[in-house]
């Protein structure tokens, strides 16, 4: 779960998940920089040890480190337990392997239209062809057109107009033809 005030963004979590996935680790516990991150891969069992007390989840858990607790209380980060409420399904974490996901090639400001007076390049439900401009990213006064690499129908737009995006962040999803 990435909370509103979390220092991590969804894109960061996605990247971490990918890195861990690639490295083949089953369990990761990271602490530092004011946050704690615990990740457990589905079906992970520590060799020669009882299974972790964590309910295995296939998503990352990140929470900002809490203020130092009184010495008598147990350190809040000592025990890797899940937050009381289960993490909601992550609808804004689209599958990056989905060829229909158009992601930001660079950090910048995402614009859905050429200028505030113009209609958006694309809307949900609209059909796009390969190479169609679906948005713009402005970074330091330089504009880059974001183009569809697949043909299909725009299923979801994941970023608001004029929102700052990170490199690799999913911008919109196209339901690919066929």
């Amino acid at each position, binding site marked *: 779960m990435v909370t509103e005030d979390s220092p991590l963004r969804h894109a960061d979590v996605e990247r971490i998940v990918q890195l861990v996935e690639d490295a083949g680790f089953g369990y990761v516990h990271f602490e530092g920089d004011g946050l704690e991150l615990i990740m457990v891969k589905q079906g992970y069992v520590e060799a020669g040890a009882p299974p972790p007390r964590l309910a295995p989840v296939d998503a990352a858990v990140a929470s900002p480190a809490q203020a130092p607790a009184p010495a008598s209380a147990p350190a809040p980060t000592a025990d890797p337990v899940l937050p009381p409420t289960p993490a909601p399904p992550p609808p804004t974490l689209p599958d990056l392997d989905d060829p229909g996901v158009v992601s930001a090639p660079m950090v910048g400001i995402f614009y859905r239209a050429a200028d505030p007076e113009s209609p958006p390049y694309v809307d949900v439900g609209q059909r796009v062809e390969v190479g169609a401009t679906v948005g713009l990213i402005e970074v*330091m006064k330089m504009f880059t057109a974001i183009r569809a690499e697949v043909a299909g129908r725009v299923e979801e737009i994941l970023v608001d107009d004029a929102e700052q995006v990170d490199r690799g962040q999913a911008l919109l999803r196209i339901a690919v033809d066929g």
Partner: protein
Amino acid sequence: MSAVPLQRVLVANRGEIAVRVLRACRTMGIETVLGVSEADQDTRGVALADRVVRLGPAAADRSYLDEDLLIEAAVATGCDAVHPGYGFLAERSSFARAVEEAGLRFVGPTADSIELMGDKLRARAVAEAAAVPVVPGSEAVASVAEAREAAWAVGYPLMLKASAGGGGRGIQVVRSDEELGEVFEVVTAEVAAAFGDPRVFLERFVASARHVEVQVLGDGAGKVITLGERDCSLQRRFQKIVEEAPAHLPSLDEEHLGRLRSGLFDAARSLASSIDYRGAGTVEFIVDQQRGDFFFLEMNTRIQVEHPVTEEVTGIDLVAWQLRIAGGEPLDLRQEEVRLAGHAIEVRLTAEQAAAGFMPTPGLIERWMQPGGPGVRVDTHCYPGYRVPVNYDSLLCKLIVHGPDRPTALRRLAAALDEFHVEGVATTRDFLLELIQHPEVVGGRIHTRWVESAELATLR
């Protein structure tokens, strides 16, 4: 204007120029108010200003470009003047006018001067009236047919230019009648959208040209002094990268060079004087380096990015003079007192990846170790831990070196660039280092389009 020294100045800009203006005010005992956007609350200037006001969100049109907001900020904080820096509102006559109508001083020329020089066609007419040579060109052309007819007299290659353009924007090189037909409508439409003024005109494209400009200071009543020239021929897409003073033109012998320089100074003085120019300004020329001829290009009615090279060779604080003139103090500097000593060079270090087509690279500056030593000056708003925002231009810092002669200045520049160490964001350091050590640059065998044609290892 009565002489009432400025008490409190609103700095209506950001980045390194905000720092530069704040420093000038501090040394003069003028109080400062810095307006910042949400994205700039950690900029270096915040620590230097007496007071900081938050203007609005990061988007420039709701902060640094919002004329009413800035005037409101100046009035509400008890300022008596506004310094616009460069870019943003510096050359908007409507802003200069509104500032003065609000009872504040505008640290710059009059709104009329800004308007006159901002219109390239009218500026050409002013230059011609002041007997300053202009590049052979046309009046405004309204159609492809008109443009082709005018092109016959101007000759190809030529430049299709926006009357309202400037700062390298709204310019297209055209090589033939056919190409003119292809690009005319596109350029006109782009220019109308970008500047709200569709007028375009033609100007001869001077091949192998140098960009040489003259710094002036005017008292607003006809007195103008010149502070030497700057050569800004190393450009990329009409954006300056390296600037130096004095100009190094080995293709001309000493006698021709002397004649060229005095011609440039006289032309700049007579043009600025003819409009009773007030404050700091720059008259830009293109110089035919084979023949030593020069032509008026445009006048910039503000402090320029590259002003430090002039400060280094003259020892004169240009921003302080801007503030003094805005306070109504007399320009009691005589032309004979302006002495040019040694050689100064500036490079613009930007957050860009040169090898990736100069892709901007905003982000967190993790390490920042800047050079120093004799003759080395760094004008910047950056520091370790500073996050370069995505919202504005990519200039991180200006590195300026000064030495007794050009070879010494070049060596100092190379050593200083080599010493410059930034981590976290990509910078153009290596590109600049290669550029200023390139034999053609060292030998002065360059022109305004040279960078684009040069085979540079750091661009691969």
